[in-house]
């Protein structure tokens, strides 16, 4: 497995503007993240709001500049080169944004929205371009008649499909979805998630799926990375991570998923306290202020990501000891029956359409 996208030691702090009567605040948004995404895999980045996952997504595409660290895409550097030199590379890596109401230029027609990557990267002439726009619209489940309309004439789910078509227009190999479904209605979420999976298979895409919705993540991803206060605390194959979470934070996160079946419910041992401010992260292990297993060493020494088991990394001094407790603490996760039913229905419908087409 070779890495399509690789990040090393990625770090980005946001500094408050200097002010004579206020101390400078430095928010440690992303603090030393290493990440590798293999060709064809779906990596999910999860964590609660404010943990830096969106910043990480933007750093990977260099929509914001890292303070330090490097990103390479398909062996070529993304960081440390001029923006103009980066532009050709951008065709290969695209982004889908969270808010479909803010991410489309309100003054563009759909044909311009989808056609622009083709123009900018000189992928096709005017006639071919129109054919391509029509095709892309059909690929994402819209119709070529929609090309002349403006974004405000569409619903949230349709707009997200337009955003996906735009992302696909430049033939990318990698798509980063920054909470691509969390602004949508639950029923629409399933459709868009299925669409993404279908497109991924059809165009052999690599996906990075940034989300806080753990049940969606379980459904779509091959591998999961859990973030807390700007750091990755655990990563591993999805099933293994959901079944035996190693880091106490992951354990708490998974325990917070609502369980439908009363027989499977267990007393909530949720975390106490709030997430510490990212402008003053606690010393040592950042999670020690809320960790039920914290000991003296956690306050002093920051744990590093270590390999435990197959393909799994965890940043916890006592992961091995806690793992046993954690395994029993995490309830068996089953897909909610209604959601599973809905997804199955959509899949069947999609298969029917594919057959008839």
């Amino acid at each position, binding site marked *: 497995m070779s890495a399509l996208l690789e990040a090393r030691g990625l770090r980005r702090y946001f500094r408050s503007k200097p002010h004579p009567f206020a101390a400078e605040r430095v928010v440690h948004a992303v603090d030393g993240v290493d990440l590798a995404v293999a060709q064809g895999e779906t990596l999910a980045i999860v964590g609660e709001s404010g943990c830096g996952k969106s910043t990480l997504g933007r750093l990977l595409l260099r929509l914001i500049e890292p303070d330090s660290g490097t990103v390479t895409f398909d062996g070529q550097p993304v960081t440390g080169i001029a923006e103009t030199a980066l*532009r050709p590379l951008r065709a290969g890596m695209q982004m889908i944004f969270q*808010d479909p109401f803010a991410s489309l230029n309100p*003054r563009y027609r759909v044909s311009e929205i989808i056609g622009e990557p083709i123009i900018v990267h000189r992928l096709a002439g005017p006639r071919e371009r129109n054919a391509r726009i029509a095709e892309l619209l059909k690929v994402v489940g819209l119709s*070529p008649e929609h*090309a002349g309309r403006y974004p405000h004439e569409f619903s949230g789910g349709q707009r997200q499909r337009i955003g996906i078509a735009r992302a696909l227009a430049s033939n990318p190999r990698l798509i980063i979805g920054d909470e691509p479904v969390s602004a949508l209605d639950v029923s629409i979420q399933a459709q868009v998630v299925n669409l993404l999976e279908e497109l991924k298979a059809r165009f*052999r895409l690599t996906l990075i799926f940034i989300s806080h919705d753990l049940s969606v993540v379980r459904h779509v991803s091959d591998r999961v990375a859990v973030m807390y206060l700007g750091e990755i605390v655990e990563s591993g194959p999805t099933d293994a991570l959901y079944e035996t979470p190693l880091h106490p934070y992951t354990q708490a996160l998974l325990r917070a998923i609502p369980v439908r079946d009363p027989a499977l419910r267990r007393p909530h041992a949720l975390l106490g306290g709030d997430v510490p401010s990212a402008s003053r992260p606690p010393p040592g292990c950042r999670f020690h202020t809320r960790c039920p297993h914290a000991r003296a060493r956690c306050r002093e020494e920051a744990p590093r990501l270590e390999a435990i088991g197959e393909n799994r990394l965890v940043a916890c001094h006592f992961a091995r000891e806690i793992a046993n407790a954690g395994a029993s603490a995490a309830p068996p996760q089953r897909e909610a029956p209604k959601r599973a039913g809905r997804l199955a229905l959509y899949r069947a419908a999609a298969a029917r359409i594919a057959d008839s087409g």
Partner: protein
Amino acid sequence: MTMDAALPAAEALPPVERRTLKKFVRNRAAVVGATIVIVFLAMAIFAPLISPFDPAQTNFRLVRKAPDALHWFGTDEIGRDVLARVIFGARASLLAGCISVLVALAVGVPLGLVAGYLGGWYDMVISRCTDALLSIPFLILAIALAAFLGPSLTNAMLAIGIAATPFIIRLTRGQTLAVRTEDYVEGARAVGVPRLRIALRYILPNIAAPILVQATLIVAQAIIAEASLSFLGLGQQPPAPSWGSMLNTAKNYMEQAPWMAIWPGVAIFLAVLGFNLMGDGLRDALDPRDV
């Protein structure tokens, strides 16, 4: 990746509908505004054909005559026909209003965009210069510039345009700052859209509405500023008329000959109203969101 080649030959996209004009025409106030502006423009262009008298012809037997069947708008303090002067005055006043605003837009919008979009040192330099210009009252600045450039209508228009530029710069910069952080601008960067194209196709269309409205307001201010400059001898040179210079002379005869002030005043009022209504209509028609 390649798209399925087997797909039926791509059907043509539907023809693009031009809705802007349709929407503008449906807006009654905008049509009224555009009509007023067009009538005034026609009046300015065809002044020699429609004017009943020579605007510079004096007649000492007809000093300050009230309006009658021959001189519909009356005559002024040296017996010139007010109607003829209002018609010919449209030339100077409309030119002063429009050209100076075009100057202000041509200079102010690019500078504001650069300051707002690129930020950093560009913003520092442009914004500080703008602040310095804004600290001088609009009219004083226009007078100083006009005096520096020398008395003529062209120089007066330039001076008014430059004096109005800082308002446009500041507005453009502020709007750009607001739009720059929108998701769709970040999305354009992610796609790899060059910066100039982002500025012209993403930011400019989305900040055009307030700038357009501001511009129509400046047209009004510029017409009045031209009047002030004319009064000081820095604008339209006598005996050629402009509405502003007519008003300025008329104020000395307000009690004896109010028609001297009323008609150029009405003309300014109507022209400004026309530009404002048209500007509002344009703003709405250009916004695809508003049906």
